[in-house]
């Protein structure tokens, strides 16, 4: 038996996959629906406004149901630059993963910033949503964010 055949004996293909279906519920569901209409919706609890919309207040655990619409602009709170995207990334040119605080929100959303150089971004940079052509009622309805000059 060849060396190759010996090693094949020790392997067997094992493909495990299943398409799950997620119920988003009334709060996250409405947030996604808003994205498909090019709206940024947050949930409000006193002085706190959560984007992405939170179903439960992360501090007080209360049910949240009051929505507010926020602008498409925000501020970079933190980022990391991806110079050589891999095939599983959603953007196939250099981009940044960033935490972005939408104007009027008190929490940050994780998304991507592209069409710029690494040296163009800093904490505090101003960004604006770039909407996707195709609407799927998912987070992908935001294609990415882009830097803006104000």
């Amino acid at each position, binding site marked *: 038996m060849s060396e190759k055949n010996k090693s094949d004996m020790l392997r*067997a293909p*094992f493909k*495990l996959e299943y398409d*799950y*279906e*997620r*119920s988003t*519920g009334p709060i*996250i569901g409405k947030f996604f629906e808003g994205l498909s209409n090019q709206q940024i919706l947050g949930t409000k609890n006193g002085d706190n406004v959560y984007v992405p919309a939170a179903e439960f207040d992360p501090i007080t*655990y209360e049910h949240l149901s009051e929505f507010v619409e926020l602008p498409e602009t925000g501020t970079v709170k933190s980022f990391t630059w991806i110079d050589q995207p891999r095939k599983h990334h959603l953007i196939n040119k250099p981009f940044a993963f960033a935490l972005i605080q939408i104007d009027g929100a008190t929490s940050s959303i994780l998304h991507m910033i592209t069409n710029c150089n690494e040296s163009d971004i800093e904490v505090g940079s101003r960004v604006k949503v770039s909407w996707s052509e195709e609407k799927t009622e998912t987070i992908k309805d935001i294609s990415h964010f882009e830097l803006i000059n104000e």
Partner: protein
Amino acid sequence: MIDAAVIGVGQTKYDSKRRDVSVGGLVREAIDNAMKHANVDWDAIDAVILGKAPDMFEGIMMPELSLADAIGAVGKPVLRVHTAGSVGGSTSVIAATHVTSGNFDTVLTVTFEKQSESNATWALSPKYPYSPHINAGAGGYFAPYMREYIRRYNAPENIGWIVAAKDRQNALKNPYAHLQIPNIDEKMVADTPMLWEPLRYLESCPSSDGACALVISNEKLAKGRKAAWIKGMAVRSEGTLSAGRDEVNPQGGQDCASDIYKQAGILNPKDEIDCAEIYVPFSWYEPMWLENLHFCDLGEGWKLTENGTTALDGDLPINMSGGVLSSNPIGASGMIRFGEAALQVMHQANEYQVDGAKLAMGHAYGGASQFFAMWVVGNER
């Protein structure tokens, strides 16, 4: 050991698809109901214990992390429990142990399954490269044990139909129950197609979405109010396919039952326990567990089913709420048994209350009949 009692039981409406809520919303529905029942606020909760069956059931890895806000665990100790189908029972025991240990005054515990987001049979029977894919699921796995029970004790085939009809008749009195089948009777069960010999379609549990939560406390909150005091609780385990193992009457189940009876000072469970909620996902498991839990001698279980002892108006009512045969959100199913036992001794089981119940048992099993969790609760400390 410090005395502990259930002071709140909360459930969701069980259904095949609760598409109206997220996983967090589903879990929170049970928690809100339990905290309302217990009349406590978040300030009273010292720790949160979450249980559910395999993560592959919903495809959410470590749900205790993403659910931290929904279950009010932020800033508090949180623990996740997993022991397959028995998890609702073992989670209840572990939560209660957090109180009896003296480490916490009041613990919130919650279990759930949202089966509509996936397919439990797929998750339980993946295609492995080294064996033919049988896609059997739980029913196919347990059917041979039921056939062996029937063979050993020469039980008549209608016993399974009696259990299936009886539990669904009880479910008609429980607004939370998933299956509500008007006019259900033995004949309707017997006329359904055979799934896995000897099990017919209506002798099997449904797939349900749902959650169940309990608030468990010591005397600080439980004294002087309606409470289900825990008189004995235990968990036991066995290997999956070890030689000499008797899956029809597992040693782990026998030992677990003996342990809780000893703790509770029960010498004759059939006479002393007023009613029990036991984990019967397939009809034949009622007589099998009656024997395993020492309610009767070997071979006598099916006779208790046949002569009506286990009916709601019988001497030992079993699964008054409709049981797993009527609602099966897998991860929560054990805790529902434990919570329903508590409701019986709190005399709050409404339409399916057993008159004057003072001592009730909750039971769950899981895996390949290898994990067991049980408790006995009473209306007095």
